[in-house]
């Protein structure tokens, strides 16, 4: 190790720490090791799950039709499991530890238990994976009853969830220690606040997961005879969908963090940004509704209220971040001296820094592709046209791949120098990575949505129905969409693979980082020329952000138009009552 560890008091008791050369923060070595372990585990599962995703996409590309049907359903189950649960949640645990121990200058609460948590998650993930790969658990990661998997499938997920729950409590414990020991002054930073939002939602969703998966496990073991199919979905998705709000909160926190590190950006208004986070918690509701809009046995009143997250108040939270984040970037860049015209701040942003490029692409793709499609898809009646078609995976690849995954990749480019204390190897290659992955992810999202609009169903091996008694011919455009989806998948896989290789190589072979090169190791940043204009925030008179206003206006116009186009399509459907 290049840095000498010191022993001293942080967070009340003696712990080993080092002093970060960039920020002067005391970095608890135990926290650092745990962040590394969780991040590395996350990336390994992303690599595995990403390969599965590519195989699925190449099978759905009818001209390639790579896998036989049984393997297709197996691999699709493994894909959903490894990326949506394992990759995302391992990485979120790393983010939680970073946002608490590191940002608050504190030691991590109970590192031993944090290792137990890590162990449980790892054992759970492996158990679930092995069970799926053995071939008896091709029930999709949602495992809708009465489809039944062997008990170890459910047990694996339960163990993983218990581990994640422990991680959440360690985060909360660390916040308590930091507060009691006064390791920071005033309120917790906005990014930590975002992480806290994620954590609170995580506790709620994991509890829901336990409520449904433990009985299902017992049912699979034969101790329970019947599980209600509607109830299962209701509670399963209270975990499955509400947990997307964890991703949302974590990724928004990262959208605030990266411009803060690279550009010195500050939130336009702490009050507004924090309230927007709070809305995620308050109006989370039963997001299961999004998966049950065409389900029998649930009233329309319940559907309408819950699908809109209580009159779209959680959506309002996201729309607020959608302005305050580009606004913070614009204000910072104008402060850095890029004041010409409406968009110089954006043009001269550090586009060759993969952390910034990844973050900004993630923001734009999430908003335009994922956010808009999500609201449209979640409109009770419009869902009739889209439920269980490929539009659904199209939508959530925009949110969870182009949005969350890309944001997590972006922050990793900063975690490597800051936590692993290594320079990013091959910066020229790294520069291209977010664009490749972003383009690929945007492609799979758009083309799956396109195919879904044409009625192609999700989780379906053969849209030519070659083995079926009765058949159906999808329009040629549907085949074209799936072909383009396959090509985009290749692009995304190259971008994703590049990420994994760059990060692993940097961690193993990158140049060591110390006080002399830490700033350079964060990648290119714009020349800073702090002017007075932005020093004081929260004062309405001090800034004017025309670029952001235009971006937000374009977004809103696209949103409104797309929304009404879908109502128009709906009105042309057969009459239903």
């Amino acid at each position, binding site marked *: 190790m290049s840095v000498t560890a010191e022993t001293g008091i942080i967070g009340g008791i003696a712990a080993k720490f080092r002093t970060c050369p960039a920020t002067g923060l005391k970095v608890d070595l135990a926290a650092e090791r745990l962040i590394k372990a969780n991040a590395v585990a996350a990336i390994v599962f992303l690599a595995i799950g990403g390969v599965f995703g590519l195989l699925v996409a190449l099978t759905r590309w009818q001209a390639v039709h790579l896998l036989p049907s049984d393997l297709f*359903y197996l691999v699709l189950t493994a894909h959903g499991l490894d990326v949506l649960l394992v990759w995302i949640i391992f990485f979120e645990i790393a983010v939680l530890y970073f946002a608490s121990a590191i940002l608050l200058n504190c030691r991590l609460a109970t590192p031993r238990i944090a290792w137990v948590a890590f162990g449980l998650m790892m054992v759970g993930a492996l158990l679930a994976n092995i069970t799926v790969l053995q071939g008896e658990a091709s029930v*999709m990661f949602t495992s*809708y009853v*009465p*489809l039944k998997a062997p008990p170890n499938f459910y047990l694996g997920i339960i163990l993983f969830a218990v581990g994640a729950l422990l991680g959440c409590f360690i985060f909360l414990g660390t916040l308590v220690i930091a507060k009691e020991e006064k390791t920071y*002054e005033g*309120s917790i930073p906005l*990014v930590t606040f975002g992480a806290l939002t994620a954590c609170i939602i995580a506790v709620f969703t994991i509890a829901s997961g336990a409520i449904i998966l433990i009985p299902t496990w017992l049912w699979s073991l034969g101790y329970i005879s019947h599980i209600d*199919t*509607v109830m299962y979905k209701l509670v399963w998705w209270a975990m499955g969908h509400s947990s997307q709000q964890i991703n949302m909160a974590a990724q928004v926190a990262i959208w*605030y963090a990266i411009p*803060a*590190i690279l550009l010195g950006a500050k*939130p*336009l*208004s702490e*009050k507004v940004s924090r309230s927007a986070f709070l809305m995620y918690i308050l109006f989370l509701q039963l997001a299961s509704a999004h998966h049950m809009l*065409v389900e*029998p*046995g649930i009233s*329309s009143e319940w559907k*309408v209220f819950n699908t*809109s997250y209580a*009159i779209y108040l959680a959506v*309002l939270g996201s*729309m*607020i971040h959608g*302005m305050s984040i580009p606004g913070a970037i614009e204000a910072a860049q104008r402060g850095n001296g890029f004041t010409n015209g409406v968009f110089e701040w954006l043009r001269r942003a550090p586009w060759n820094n993969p952390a910034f490029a990844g973050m900004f692409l993630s923001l734009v793709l999430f908003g335009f592709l994922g956010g808009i499609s999500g*609201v449209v898809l979640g*409109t*009770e*009646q419009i*869902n*009739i*046209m889209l*439920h*269980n078609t490929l539009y659904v995976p199209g939508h959530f690849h925009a949110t969870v791949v182009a949005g969350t995954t890309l944001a997590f990749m972006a922050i990793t480019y900063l975690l490597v120098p800051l936590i692993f204390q290594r320079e990013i190897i091959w910066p020229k290659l790294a520069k291209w990575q977010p664009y490749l992955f972003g383009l690929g992810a945007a492609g799979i999202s758009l083309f799956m949505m396109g195919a879904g609009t*044409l*009625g192609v*169903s*999700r*989780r379906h091996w*053969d*849209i030519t*129905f070659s083995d079926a*008694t*009765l*058949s*159906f011919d*999808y329009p040629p455009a549907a085949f074209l969409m799936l072909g383009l989806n396959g090509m985009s998948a290749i692009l995304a896989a190259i971008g994703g693979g590049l990420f994994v290789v760059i990060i692993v190589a940097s961690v193993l072979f990158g140049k060591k980082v110390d006080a002399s090169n830490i700033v350079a190791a964060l990648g290119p940043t714009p020349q800073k020329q702090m002017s007075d204009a932005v020093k004081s925030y*929260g004062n*309405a008179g001090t*800034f004017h952000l025309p670029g952001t206003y235009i971006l937000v206006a374009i977004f*809103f116009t696209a949103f409104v138009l797309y929304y009404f186009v879908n*109502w128009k399509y709906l*009105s042309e*459907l*057969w*009459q*239903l009552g």
Partner: protein
Amino acid sequence: MALTSPESKIWWNLPIGRAELVWIVIAFFWGVFMFGMMVWWHLEGNQNLSNEVYRISPAKFEERTEAFTEKYTVREEAGMPVAKPEPGAEVYMLSRLWEWWPILELKKGQTYRLHLSSLDWQHGFSLQPVNINIQVHPGLEHVVTLTPTQSGEFSVVCNEFCGEGHHTMVGRIHVVD
């Protein structure tokens, strides 16, 4: 900045910028509008999913579908009966691994009460190329009021994963003028 504690300890008292305020107000009312759209469509729109649902045992539903089919069968197609109920009739279609049964023949512009249920696992009623998608559960009988507005040959694809034969599960509805 966002990674450090707010510079002003009393950040909750600072005024909000005008642009942010305007956007919050617009976004809020847009949300209220979108909510209202769903409610209004229930009152005025022609495409709403019915809430008429009954608990039923798979055996009972199978029995009723068989009685319905026996009464209305007019011919066979690909080894399956084609049922042609009179307009306004109670119409049954069951789903099971891996078929939709029976084939239906409906009249354009007429309204039918379509009863859907599953005898085993969940299935997805996906009417193509119209693109009407309804989830089908075992044990629940969902009665959907349906008025075809086009004539021709339509297919019912299963779009809820239901095991190894899922992709062979296709049914048919004919609509005649």
